[in-house]
């Protein structure tokens, strides 16, 4: 037995915790439930930290792996399930565990009215959600990945709709559940096709066995179908419609988990499946994958940024900023090179800290004012300027990629990798992070400083965010300390990630292992060349990286300033600029907003259109 045999515990610990909560919640009451949840979340984070230290700093030979049930392969064949401890996989699980820990601390005594008969239900569901995410991140078996994917979905749907007193959460959760389930059925169909062709379920084993066949329509169909479920989870255009509707209505702690890590796991899964299953002979050619997925990423990033800028409902604003960033993550991962993968991993880690912190701060506003409407809160949050306001601005700057935040470093890796493939992609990273960060700063200026003119009512379809139910019903109470401390710690972690020495080395190695098919096959017990030469470590901060980070931050600050103080400017130029913006908004933005109708039928039609388009593209490009 070695350290890596602790991998299955990352599923077992939260599961036992959830069972205990459901079993004893009635007797141990509220406080007991909170303590029990904290204990199990801490144990889980500790185990993953040990695993990550074991795997991230390098061991000779290939990445470690653990066969559940001891079904180690004989002559390269096994009937069991392998869990692979490569740094990116374990790191993703660790990220989920740390965020769950933050959420547990944040929601300490969060809900007033847990279900009377089972007060442990909410924390138990959070732990099951964690089990699903961690299992999905570390498994090396395609069907097993599907099972944990479904577990993470089931728990997430229930958590999203948790405030049943209001019909909106129930509708949001229903859309979330149905669209994601449809995606998951596609994935299962694809797994069925792959099993029929190869007779294998392990990702490395399927990839190996595909080498005996030509790339044909079956391979293409399987690839697209498996990818569909993952891209739906990742909210990539045109599969993204569920995300904003679910985020707008989910309880704040759940938003932190959805945006911070679950959505990103979709991109992680797509990249993982490509590298382990489809990157070799008999798979899908790399140029096709790179071309199509980078295109999807660009469209997703731009749409997320544009829609983010349009929102006045804070949770929807943050949700669309997540879509924008997911587009950037997809671009980074789809470059199919080690540096892109390293940038993807680091960017996701930094973004998780910043985005979860922003959602947590939004939760404070909801708690204090019963509203998440930026216009309605205009100047009303001045009392919280020095605590929540400052942190909110810091979060906005982190989102824009200000050095030395971890988001800035991740962005600089991804940007460099993308720019060396296609220079215009550098601009995409700067613009999207600048616009999303700017939208957050604009909201902060309006709510905490009452800066500029009171924004007027504009026409067109929009969700205001007025009349939300406060999640904690105790008006006039002081902000609980944990609700400020948790976002502060999250932002500090995001900062530490960018400042820690040697981050480039650790993530550079992680990225190289992530894209190494040989390493994964060796870990899964297949014969092969095994370990590859370690890549040259990435430099922590480069001049170009810092300069681009400052540029996107300047863009964010500039956009926020123009949006807040621009409408009051006089003079011919200002008037002309306003007229041009209004025309642009009418022709481009309004139709786009109209597409986000929130109707389930529309979401499903777009899902189908997306699958058909991907099938068409990959059939032509194979």
């Amino acid at each position, binding site marked *: 037995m070695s350290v890596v045999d602790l991998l299955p515990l990352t599923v077992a610990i939260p599961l036992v915790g959830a069972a*205990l909560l459901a079993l004893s919640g009635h007797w141990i009451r509220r406080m007991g439930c909170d303590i029990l949840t904290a204990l199990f979340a801490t144990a889980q984070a500790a185990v993953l930290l040990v695993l990550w230290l074991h795997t991230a700093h390098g061991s000779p030979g290939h990445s470690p792996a653990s066969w559940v049930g001891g079904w180690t392969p004989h002559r390269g064949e096994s009937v069991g399930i392998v869990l692979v401890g490569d740094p990116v996989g374990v790191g993703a699980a660790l990220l989920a565990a740390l965020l769950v820990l933050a959420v547990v601390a944040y929601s300490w005594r969060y809900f007033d009215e847990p279900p009377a008969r089972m007060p442990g239900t909410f924390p138990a569901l959070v732990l099951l959600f964690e089990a699903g995410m961690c299992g999905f991140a570390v498994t090396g078996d395609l069907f097993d990945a599907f099972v944990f994917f479904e577990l993470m979905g089931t728990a997430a749907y229930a958590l999203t709709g948790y405030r049943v007193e209001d019909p909106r959460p129930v509708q949001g959760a229903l859309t979330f559940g149905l669209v994601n389930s449809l995606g998951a059925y596609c994935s299962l169909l694809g797994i069925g096709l792959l099993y029929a062709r190869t007779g294998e379920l392990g990702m490395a084993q399927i990839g190996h066995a595909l080498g005996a066949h030509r790339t044909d*329509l079956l391979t293409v169909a399987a690839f697209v179908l498996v990818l569909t479920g993952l891209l739906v989870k990742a909210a990539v255009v045109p599969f993204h419609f569920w995300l904003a509707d679910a985020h707008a209505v989910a309880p704040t702690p759940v938003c932190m988990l959805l945006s911070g890590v679950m959505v990103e796991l979709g991109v992680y899964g797509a990249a993982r499946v490509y590298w382990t299953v489809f990157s070799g002979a008999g798979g899908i050619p790399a140029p096709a994958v790179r071309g199509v997925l980078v295109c999807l990423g660009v469209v997703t990033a731009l749409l997320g940024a544009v829609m983010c800028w349009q929102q006045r409902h804070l949770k929807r604003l943050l949700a669309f900023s997540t879509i924008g960033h997911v587009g950037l993550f997809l671009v980074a991962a789809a470059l199919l090179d080690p540096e892109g993968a390293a940038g993807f991993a680091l960017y996701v880690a930094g973004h998780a800290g910043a985005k979860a912190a922003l959602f947590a701060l939004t939760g404070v506003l909801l708690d204090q004012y019963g509203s998440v409407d930026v216009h309605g809160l205009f100047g009303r949050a001045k009392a919280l300027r020095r605590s929540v306001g400052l942190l909110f601005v810091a979060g906005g700057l982190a989102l824009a990629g200000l050095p030395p935040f971890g988001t800035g470093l991740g962005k600089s890796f991804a940007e460099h990798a993308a720019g060396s493939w296609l220079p215009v992609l550098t601009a995409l990273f700067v613009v999207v992070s600048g616009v999303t960060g700017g939208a957050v700063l604009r909201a902060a200026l309006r709510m905490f400083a009452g800066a500029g003119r009171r924004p007027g009512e504009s026409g067109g379809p929009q969700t205001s965010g007025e009349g939300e139910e406060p999640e904690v019903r105790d008006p006039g109470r002081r902000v609980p300390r944990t609700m400020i401390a948790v976002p502060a710690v999250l932002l500090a972690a995001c900062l530490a990630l960018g400042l820690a020495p040697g981050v480039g080395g650790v993530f550079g190695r992680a990225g190289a292992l992530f894209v190494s098919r040989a390493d994964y096959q060796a870990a899964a017990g297949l014969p092969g060349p095994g370990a590859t030469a370690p890549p040259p470590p990435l430099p922590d901060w480069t001049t170009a990286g810092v300069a681009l980070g400052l540029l996107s931050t300047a863009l964010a600050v500039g956009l926020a300033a123009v949006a807040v103080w621009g409408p009051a400017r006089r003079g011919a130029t200002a008037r002309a600029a306003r007229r041009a913006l209004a025309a642009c908004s009418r022709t481009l933005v309004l139709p786009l907003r109209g597409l986000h109708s929130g109707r389930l039928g529309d979401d499903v039609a777009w899902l189908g259109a997306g699958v058909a388009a991907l099938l068409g593209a990959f059939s032509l490009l194979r």
Partner: protein
Amino acid sequence: MTRRARTRLFLAAAAVIAAVFALACLRLPPFGTQTHPYADRAVEATMRQRTANTVSSVNFDQRAFDTLGEETILFAAVLGAVGLLRRTADERRTRPRPVAVLPSTRLFGAVMLPITLLTGVYIVGHGQLSPGGGFQGGVILATGVHLSYLAADYRVLDRLRHREALDRADALAAGTFAALGLIGLGAGAAYLQNVLHLGTFNQLVSGGLVPYINAAVGVEVATGVIVILAHFLDQTEEFAGGGKGGSR
């Protein structure tokens, strides 16, 4: 999007998907071939593990980690139902009225209920030997209990199922599966490793860990299905007023 545009978009997409999927299926290996790499290995492993039912060996031993995840999905669904279908402040509880049932229906229920329960127990209990197991038997057990709803009325069903006990049994069974896996780690082997004595092939106690995991799954599925249905039935039978998603 208008209704028409949506339908057109969906139909066009569906046509493309159907065409590509149909062409892809033509590339599938034909029926009746001799190469089944996983099946050959699984049957061989089943024999080594002295488990008579290969499906149960795959479910509860060779790929037990999958089953752990699947069973946890059911557990999450149960907790989700508990959370989402809870009685809210604006819902009143009403006492369901007794319902008149044909005597023949009542007789049928009275005869079939114990038989169904017995069948369920048998299917769960012999999961390691013959077709069936925890999943199938669990569903049969839950079905049996609900015969009382068909053959009598809701009040009889409510007397038959002790809600608190079922909730706890469900959680206990889910936790037991995860905890059973720790035996392997404790013995210095892997998680969920079948380290118990394997016993004699085709005996009730054989296959090591398989019958225990199988039983835990049986309890989890039976109680889980009853609890989920109970929450849905409560919504229609007992709660009045308010109305979720109603008139706001």
